[in-house]
C-alpha cells in the first residue's frame, strides 16, 4: 500500500553534493522520522521523495515502482509543510478539497472526504473560514487535513511543528501519533527535534551531512548508538563523553548518559566541582566540572540540593557505558 524504498539516492546542487548516497526502505504503515542537525539534507531528501527536487542519482521507489520521473501529483503522496502553505484565498473546506476537485472527483464525494477529515481533526466549526482567520495550530491541522483528504500512499511531513509554540507542539504531536494509528498509513516525518523523533517514530533515520548515520527504533538508538554522533544527538540532556584512556580503557571516548552517572559528596571515581544546578521539580540536573573531562551532566530524579562550587564525586555505571574508538565508531 505504501512502502518506500530509496536506493543510492544522491543530490548535488552544482558541485556541492548534499545527499551522498542514501539507501533506506520504509515498510508499509511505518512511521519513519528523518532527524539530524540543520543542513544535514533531511528536508532535501524529503523533497526528493515528494518530487519537488530531482534526484541526481539513485532510485526512489514507492510500492516497487520507480518514481524519479513521475510528477509530484502523480506519486500519490501528500505533504505537510512547515509554513502550512495553505491557499490564502480559499476556505478551509476548499483548501482541503482542491486536489480532489482538480482530479475531477464528484462534488458529493469531495464533501464526504472533507467532512471525514474535518471530523478526525476537529475542524468542523472552521470549515467556512479562510486561513487568515485561523490560529497557527488550526492552520497546521487544516494542512494535515488537506493531506488526509487525498488518501495518499505516503504522508510526508516537513518539520510541521516548528512554527507552533511549545504547548501546541506537544498537543499536535500527540494528534499526529493518534492519526497514524487511525490511518495506518506510511508516514515520513522530518524534524531536527530529537524529542519529536523519539516520541513519534517507529523507526528513526539519523542523518548527518547527507549520509545516514544510523537507522533504528528509538530505543535501539538510545540503547545501542553506532557512533558518537548518534549517541550525542539522541537523548536529552546530551550524553557525556569522557576520555577513555584516563579511565584505564583502550584509547578513544567513553559515552555515558547523564542518568547513568551517580553523584556523591564523599566518594567516587571522578572528582568534580559543581558549576551549575538546574532544578526542574521532577528531576535535577547537576553540571560538574572535572579538569580532565570537562563539564559533565548528571541527571538525578527528584529534588536535590547541591551548591555551586561544591566538591563532589561522580561514578559511572559501567554496564551503561558506551565505548567509542578514536574515529567515533562504537567499539563492540
Amino acid at each position, binding site marked *: 500500500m505504501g512502502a518506500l524504498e530509496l536506493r543510492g539516492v544522491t543530490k548535488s546542487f552544482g558541485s556541492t553534493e548534499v545527499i551522498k548516497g542514501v539507501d533506506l526502505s520504509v515498510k508499509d504503515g511505518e512511521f519513519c522520522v528523518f532527524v539530524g542537525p540543520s543542513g544535514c539534507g533531511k528536508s532535501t531528501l524529503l523533497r526528493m521523495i*515528494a*518530487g*519537488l527536487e530531482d534526484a541526481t542519482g539513485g532510485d526512489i521507489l514507492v510500492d516497487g515502482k520507480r518514481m524519479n520521473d513521475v*510528477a*509530484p*501529483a*502523480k506519486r500519490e*503522496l*501528500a*505533504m505537510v*509543510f*512547515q*509554513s502550512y*502553505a*495553505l*491557499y*490564502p*484565498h480559499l476556505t478551509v473546506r476548499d483548501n482541503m478539497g*482542491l*486536489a480532489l476537485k*482538480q*482530479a475531477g472527483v464528484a462534488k458529493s464525494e469531495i464533501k464526504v472526504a472533507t467532512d471525514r477529515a474535518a471530523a478526525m481533526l476537529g475542524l468542523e466549526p472552521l470549515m467556512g473560514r*479562510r486561513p*487568515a482567520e485561523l490560529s497557527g495550530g488550526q492552520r497546521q491541522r487544516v494542512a494535515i487535513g*488537506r493531506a488526509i483528504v*487525498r488518501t495518499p500512499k505516503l504522508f510526508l511531513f516537513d518539520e510541521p511543528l516548528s512554527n507552533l509554540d511549545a504547548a501546541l507542539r506537544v498537543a499536535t504531536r500527540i494528534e499526529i501519533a493518534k492519526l497514524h494509528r487511525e490511518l495506518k498509513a506510511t508516514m515520513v516525518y522530518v524534524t531536527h527535534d530529537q524529542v519529536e523523533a523519539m516520541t513519534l517514530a517507529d523507526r528513526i533515520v539519523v542523518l548527518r551531512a547527507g549520509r545516514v548515520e544510523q537507522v533504528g527504533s528509538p530505543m535501539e538508538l538510545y540503547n545501542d548508538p553506532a557512533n558518537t554522533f548518534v549517541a550525542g544527538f539522541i537523548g536529552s540532556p546530551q550524553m557525556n563523553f569522557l576520555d577513555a584512556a584516563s579511565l584505564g580503557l583502550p584509547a578513544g571516548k567513553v559515552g555515558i548518559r547523564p542518568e547513568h552517572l551517580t553523584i556523591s559528596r564523599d566518594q567516587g571515581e571522578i572528582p568534580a566541582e559543581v558549576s551549575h544546578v538546574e532544578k526542574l521539580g521532577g528531576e535535577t540536573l547537576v553540571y560538574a566540572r572535572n579538569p580532565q573531562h570537562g563539564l559533565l551532566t548528571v541527571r538525578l530524579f527528584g529534588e536535590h540540593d547541591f551548591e555551586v562550587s561544591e566538591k563532589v564525586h561522580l561514578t559511572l555505571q559501567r554496564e551503561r557505558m558506551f565505548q567509542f574508538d578514536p574515529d567515533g565508531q562504537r567499539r563492540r
Partner: protein
Amino acid sequence: MASRKPVRWHIAVFLAPAVLVYTALMIIPLFGTLAQSLMNKDATGERVFVGLQNFARLFGDAIWSDAFWNALANNTWFFVIHMLVQNPIGIALAAILSTPKLRMAAFYRTAIFIPTILSFVIVGFVWKLILSPIWGIAPGMLDAVGLKFLFAPWLGREETALTTLALVSVWQFVGIPMMLIYAALLSIPDEVIEAAEMDGITGWSQFWKIKLPLILPSIGIISILTFVGNFNAFDLIYVAQGALAGPDFSTDILGTFLYRTFFGFQLQLGDPYMGSAIAGSMFGIILVGVCIYLFGIQTRLRRYQF
C-alpha cells in the same frame, strides 16, 4: 494620571513641507480651476459669477456638447484598449518572467520596461515616423515578410487613428503592469506553489486557481492607475496628431479638448472659463471612477497574508 499629553510639535513640523508643497501645487490650483469654472466675463470684460452656466453650455449647446461627447467617447475607447490589451499582456509577461526556467529574464524585464522611461515626445514622434506611409519603415518591414497588403496609413484614417495611438501608448506603458504583477507573483511563497504542485494543480490551472486570485488586488490597483492615467492623457495625442487631434477630431480625447479650449489653437481663441468647466468635468469623471473603485471594488478584494 494628571500629566497632560505634551503637544507633539514634531508631527506638524514633519508634515509641513509636504502639506505646503502639495497645497501650493495641487490643492490651490484645483480649487482655483473649479472656482473659475463658475465664472465668466460679462460685456465689459469683468469677471462675474455665472453659476453653472458654463456647464449648461458645455452639455447643452450642440457646438460644445458634440465635441465633449466625442472626446469622452474617444477617451473611453482609449481606456478600453488599455484594459483589454495592455493589462492582459502585462500580466502574461509577468507570468512568463516569473517562470524559473526562463533565461535572461532580467534582460527582457529591462527591455520591456525601457519605453516607459522614454519621453512621450520621443515615443510619439518615433511611431509617427515608423508608421508613415511615405518614409516610415513599417511598409518596408511588412513587405519583407510578404504582408505589405496589410499596411494602411493607420494614423491618417479616422477609423484606425485612435486605436493605433492607444496601441502605441500600450507599447510604451506595458512595463508598468508587468512590473507590478511580477512583484505580486514573486511575493507568493514558494511553499504555496509547491503545495499546489503536490495537489496536482500545475501549469495553466495553477495560474488561474492559485496565482490569479492572489494577484487580484494588484490587478485592481493597475486598473485604477490605468483609468486615471488614460483620462488625464494628452501628451501622446498632442505630439502625434497635434492639438486638433485629427483626422477630423477622431483622436480627440478630453485632454486635447481641454487644451484647445483653454489655451486656444490656431483660429480658436482660448477661453479659460469654458476650459475650466471641461477641467472640472474631467475631475468629476475621474473622481467618480476612483470612488467606484475604492468603495465598490477595493473593499471586496481581499489582501492575503501568507
